[in-house]
């Protein structure tokens, strides 16, 4: 029937239009291989869905902390070195240098200030140790996070950190952070200020 063919034609045209809207306009650049994406994608979001297989405990972490020479910059007790304080020290020892504002004082130790343990995993994995970034194995990163969480009183000494348990750790500062308001074009950063 003619009307049937008409609908088919409309459907085909609509699909073509849809495909056009979604297709690249310039065609410059290429599709990365899965391997290329895997090698570069080191982002670990709060859900931890990108966390790799592996596991670690605080007892293993203290060994890694010594072997990888974390103590050289962060101090033997995780405080008082040139690099940020990692383990609270009752306010007696401060790091020598400021980095970002929060990492200098005891109250702002990463484990106490971060909302998610994934932030610690992500950062240690991408940026530590100095000059040897990218050399830590997943087990070592899990162990270091477990060590720092334990020493700051957040998890038990024998609690195993892995891709399932780590994102579930209830960080002390989880519920004390206000997100910035939704960004909108041409709106004042804070209405009524000053």
């Amino acid at each position: 029937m003619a009307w049937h063919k008409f609908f088919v034609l409309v459907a085909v045209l609509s699909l073509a239009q849809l495909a056009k809207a979604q297709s690249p306009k310039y065609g410059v650049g290429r599709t990365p291989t899965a391997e290329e994406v895997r090698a570069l994608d080191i982002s670990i979001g709060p859900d931890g869905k990108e966390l790799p297989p592996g596991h670690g405990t605080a007892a293993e972490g203290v060994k890694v902390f010594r072997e990888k020479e974390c103590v050289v910059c962060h101090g033997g007790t995780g405080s008082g070195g040139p690099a940020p304080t990692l383990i609270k020290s009752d306010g007696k020892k401060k790091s020598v240098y400021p980095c970002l504002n929060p990492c200098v004082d005891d109250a702002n130790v990463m484990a106490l200030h971060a909302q998610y343990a994934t932030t610690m995993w992500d950062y240690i994995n991408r940026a530590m140790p100095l000059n040897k970034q990218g050399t830590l194995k997943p087990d070592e990163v899990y162990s270091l996070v477990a060590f720092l969480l334990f020493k700051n009183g957040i998890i038990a000494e024998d609690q195993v950190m892995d891709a399932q348990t780590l994102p579930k750790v209830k960080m002390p500062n989880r519920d004390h952070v206000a997100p910035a308001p939704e960004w909108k074009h041409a709106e004042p950063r804070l209405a009524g200020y000053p």
Partner: protein
Amino acid sequence: MESKSSGRRKFLKNSAALIGAAAAGIRPANGRAPDTDMGNNMDMPDLEALIAYGQRSPFVKSKRISVMERMSPDEFGMTFHVLSPIQDSVGMITPSSLHYISTHRGSYVPNIDPQEHRLLIHGMVDRPLIFSVDEIKRFPFVTRPHFLECLGNRAKASHKTAQETHGLTSCSEWTGVPLSLLLKEAGVQSGAAFIVAEGAESVKGATSIPIGKAMDDCLVAYGQNGEALRPQQGFPIRLLVPGFEGMHNVKYLRRIKVVEKDYMTYNDYGHIVPDARVAALTRIIGPKSVITYPSGEQKLSGPGYYEITGLAWSGSGAIRSVEITTDGGQTWKPAELRTPSYPMAHTRFAFPWTWDGKECVIMSRCTDELGTRQPTRAESAKFFNKPDDKDFRAPGADNTVFPWRIAADGSVHNGMA
């Protein structure tokens, strides 16, 4: 008529005599000061190098300095935060060599081969894409001036100069590809709420940016002030997030991951606060202004005519107006804008003024195109219901009005001190 070779010999002989005279600290027999041409200078630089790529006059000494709290390079050889000498600035563009520097955490400035560098766009997109730098340059480009400012650009009473109080901001003319164009090429999926942008330097500095902003006016820049980006500013490509505090403007951009929520990277976590109002004031800069002349440690030679001048900028758009007070805030008069006023760019203002030789306090305040006016410290304190005393710390990115005190001898001092 002299032959070329005898002319050259004569030149060399005269030059040698002049160099000798200069070295001995005496004037030539004719009583004139030695020529100051480069060719006659004892410190004669490599002329071929100078012809290939120019340098400023050796008489111009303006330079960057480290922030007080931490030297750059530090004991590891890393660069942390370096202040631009804005007290010497003219116009609205910061020379690339004097652009302030901030790094994630403190890191090494990488030496990246642009032929090897790639940008990956992936995550919640229909078509993950990887680009070489040359491929990025094939896209339609835009050229726009934008300022950058570090969240740490906060005046303290201990600071002496405008470089110390306000030197963590600079403005360049940037050339690059709108990020929205690259994201559309990849096809952003519904449900996407943020991008994570990441650099290729040793610490792989990363930050989360709302997708609305990413699709609005962000740039993947490869040009700065008419040439390639400088390594200290992110060579070969960097992200520009106009108006957002410096940390979001990821240098050495290597990856953009489109995600469903704020990913709370190290840099994001570093700026989290318990108060939503402070969070809003932390992410976006200004409106803000500072008088660069006369400013701290400069000196007026005596009563008479001067131009008060400085820079104004806002993270929410173009600067609409600037006002000046020369009586400590009792009266405010309009300044002239001496450069075009571009969105999220430094704008140069000036105010013709005759100084009567008496001690006074001068300040500037600006209003942006949304009608938001730069607050005084008192106004900021009142908004947050805190006492306006010396301990008050304006929450978020500090954009409060800043005073210079001019003493009767013409010397200029930090008015907070």
